[in-house]
């Protein structure tokens, strides 16, 4: 059952081939057995899941249930789940049980999906390897001495290991796409403002966006249709009709103009990855798409701009964690300043502290113009590059990551080495565009991903292209060894 896609599960549930309770129990058993090997799931909500599954079965029996009714999923532990511990991968929230649901969680609940638990992640979504979690690293199911990518490493590994057919995740600089690529699965970060950020613990408010991870574009389309909604509680959420993403999957890609940025194929790109990506592009060309070389000249500014803007916003977003209203509090604070400085020094891990300090620096008096001001201007330039490109092409494609999954600790000493992992994904967040990754090959027995970048609110087309690609290739069907037992 765990090898069925969500689309197949939906059909199976509706035609009574199996019940949601059976399905849920099956995945709960798999998590119990296999998760210790990956550490992808940090909270399992078995009782609630079985209750929800039973309720879903009743709804299915009554007929007319929504598509995802009875389908088990996992939520990245960044989404507030009412009554269930939501840690954001941090000691700071190790004891935090929210009294409210994130809108994303609420949407799935309305649809009757079954929540199996919460997945591991880089602390406060800051990281590209899931090595910064308070709950320990996540192992990549393809190669357990390697990272799964981050920050949504738990969700990616869980889906790859078939611990759940789909999972929610978030992407601020590549945190859906990069782990999707490194774990050989499909993930999409929608246009900024497509999915509500209410109840999604904030890292960098103008960059964060929630999206689904699953084993195919078809499955992602089902999940995204549920996740996307207009939410009045989020001022940055755009009021725009949510299309039925599944209905346009089968459009032809004939005549599709694919932009291939030359800056995404420069030095630093693993040759094996490049080969796999170019093969994928050729595959689409064979289907009738047209490859057009484009230039995104300000690409080189992406990583520097991001590492000013994201930490700056984060430094303010994380100020609320002060030991006063909720979360971790240091023992016996001797005065107010001690309460703050020790709670935050003990509650936050090293990477989080580093980013807060960087953010504080970039915003401080005397540095604002040179750093924050400049970065916001660079952001404008980067967006202009994309706007110009989309006048000539329909979608943009290239590698998701510079190389396949790397070994734990290999980027340890130099934070910048880790930051460069996001070199191809970051620009899309800065521009607010939608981005996606689909598996397109193996290098050194590890998966690599093809990135698809679309124009604003063009998720339907991206999912369509990805689906067409997946109809003629089998990378997305491959499973890591040892996962089937």
């Amino acid at each position, binding site marked *: 059952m765990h090898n069925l896609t969500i689309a197949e599960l939906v059909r199976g549930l509706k035609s009574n081939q199996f019940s949601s309770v059976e399905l849920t129990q099956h995945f709960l058993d798999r998590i119990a057995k296999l998760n210790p090997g990956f550490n992808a799931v940090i909270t399992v909500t078995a009782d609630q899941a079985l209750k929800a599954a039973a309720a879903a079965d009743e709804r299915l029996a009554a007929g007319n249930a929504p598509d995802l009714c009875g389908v088990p999923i996992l939520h990245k532990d960044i*989404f*507030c789940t009412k009554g269930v511990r*939501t840690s*954001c991968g941090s000691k700071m*929230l190790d004891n*935090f049980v*929210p*009294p*409210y649901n*994130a809108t994303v969680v609420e949407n799935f609940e309305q649809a009757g999906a079954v929540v199996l638990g919460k997945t591991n992640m880089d602390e406060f979504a800051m990281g590209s390897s899931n090595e910064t979690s308070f709950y320990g690293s996540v192992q990549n199911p393809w190669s357990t001495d390697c990272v799964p990518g981050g920050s949504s490493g738990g969700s990616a590994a869980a889906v790859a290991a078939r611990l759940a057919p789909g999972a929610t995740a978030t992407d601020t600089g590549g945190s859906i796409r990069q782990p999707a690529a490194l774990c050989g699965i499909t993930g999409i970060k929608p246009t900024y403002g497509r999915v509500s*950020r*209410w*109840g*999604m*613990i*904030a890292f*960098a*408010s*103008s960059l964060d966006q929630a999206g689904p991870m699953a084993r195919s574009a078809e499955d992602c389309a089902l999940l995204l249709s549920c996740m996307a909604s207009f939410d*009045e*509680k*989020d*001022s*940055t959420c755009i009021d725009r009709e949510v299309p039925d993403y599944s209905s346009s999957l089968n459009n032809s890609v004939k005549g599709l103009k694919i932009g291939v940025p030359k800056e995404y194929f420069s030095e630093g790109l693993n040759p094996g990855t490049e080969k796999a990506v170019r093969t994928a592009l050729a595959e689409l060309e064979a289907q009738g798409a047209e490859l057009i070389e484009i230039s995104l000249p300000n690409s080189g500014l992406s990583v520097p701009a991001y590492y000013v803007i994201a930490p*700056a*916003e984060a*430094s*303010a977003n*994380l*100020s*609320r964690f*002060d030991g*006063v*209203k*909720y979360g971790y509090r240091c023992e016996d604070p001797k005065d*107010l300043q001690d309460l*703050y400085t020790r709670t935050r020094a003990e509650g936050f891990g090293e990477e989080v502290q580093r980013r807060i300090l960087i953010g*504080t620096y970039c*915003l*401080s*008096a005397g540095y*604002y113009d040179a750093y*924050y001001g400049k970065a916001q201007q660079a952001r404008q330039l980067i967006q202009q590059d994309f706007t110009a490109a989309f006048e000539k092409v329909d979608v943009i494609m290239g590698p998701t990551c510079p190389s396949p999954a790397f070994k734990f600790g290999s980027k340890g000493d130099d934070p910048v080495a880790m930051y460069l992992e996001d070199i191809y994904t970051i620009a899309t967040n800065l521009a607010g565009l939608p981005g996606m990754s689909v598996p397109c090959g193996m290098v050194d027995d590890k998966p690599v991903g093809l990135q698809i970048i679309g124009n604003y609110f063009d998720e339907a087309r991206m999912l369509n292209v990805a689906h067409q690609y997946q109809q003629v290739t089998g990378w997305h069907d491959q499973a890591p060894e040892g996962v089937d037992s």
Partner: protein
Amino acid sequence: MSWETVIGLEVHVQLATKTKIFSGASTAFGAEPNTQACAIDLAMPGTLPVLNKQAVHYAVMFGLAIDAEIGKESAFERKNYFYPDLPKGYQTTQLEKPIVGRGNVEIERADGSKKIVRIHHAHLEEDAGKSLHEGNFRHGVSGIDLNRAGTPLIEIVSEPDMSNAEEAIAFAKKLHSIVTSIGICDGEMSQGSMRFDVNVSVRPTGTKELGTRTETKNLNSFKFMEEAISKEVERQIDLIEDGGTVVQETRLYNGDTKVARSMRSKEEANDYRYFPCPDLLPVIVTDETIEELRRNLPELPDARQARFVEQYGLSDYDAAVLGSDAAMSAYFETTTEKSGNAKLAANWTMGELAARLNNEAISITNSPVSAEQLGGLIARVADNSISGKMAKEVFDGIWAGEGSADDIIEARGLKQVSDSGALEQMVAEVLAANQAMVDDYINTDEAKRKKKLGGFMGQIMKASKGQANPQQVNQILAKKLSELL
């Protein structure tokens, strides 16, 4: 050495909206701690702000009332600092693009001369919560109540155009009058609805350069503001004359103990690291909205004062006293309407009522004698049902809660006797019972007879328990006595 003073004010005005600026929690005064602090106000993880339309409209109305430029596109910024009553660790405020720009406020000095105080700008921001240093909790800690957190404020910043405490108070009172008149603030100083920060500096008379200024924060009474300014001016002058220099610092003034002190000034000035708030989008106010608000703007104090002179025939002085305070003018007008006598209404409102309210430190909005009730009382004086003297007694009765003027007149049998038949009888009886006085009167010289009338009046008033209509009695007495001559 002669000195001149330069004063600027920053005034925080709580807007009288029903809900907070960024959440739908109530702003009603006096609730139990933290019962009006929702998840957004508590800065719980994943919560987001949505802007209150009424707060925007109230801010624009203020701008219109002072003839200011309206910021048709304004933006919010984050002001970052740590304090327990600031749950997010930043205050959402406006800096670069405030909603109201330059404007003017005219003040009138005691000598009748006028002066314009320029407004630099007014911006929207959220209020912080409250720290309680003692209460129903253990020793050695402070208790934080976040009910007030998120209440909408406009901060009004003046240019340093005031030259002495009198002008500063006049300005403060004028602002109070304006904001209460247009209905954007309830003006309850004791509840913290308006708070003043005073920037004071001195310089040798005739010089142009500004001296170093100090800021005395959080004054919430005109009296305390006056005291604080006078004290600070004296302190600065003494300091400089003794060879010292004024240090730029923040100060507090305790109106109860009359002590002013510096606020932990040894610490480095806070670097607030302002940056645009990514959770809130640009605030647009259309020309249509501005015109509609302008059309519906309630009467401004200057216009009202002029109208009082014209409509009610009040003197300039009376019109100024009654017209400047929104609550008092509303009271006066209702009293006038009910009683039909503006002059009496003015006298009673400014006289008897104001004195008693002042004595017992009650605001006119909480007056135990309502405008309707006072109007009812005045109507009975105007129609001669009771004498002026009786009226005071009735007033006290209404204050004590005995009911309306009519209720009390009825209950205590205070109705002035004006029935000529009854009075005739009364006078006749008194004359008959006082033959000696009558004889004395007849035998007195004509020129000296007037003086003797008082004696008869006294007896008649005594006999009628003070309820005889004196004017009528006079007439009847004169007639009867002349018949006896």
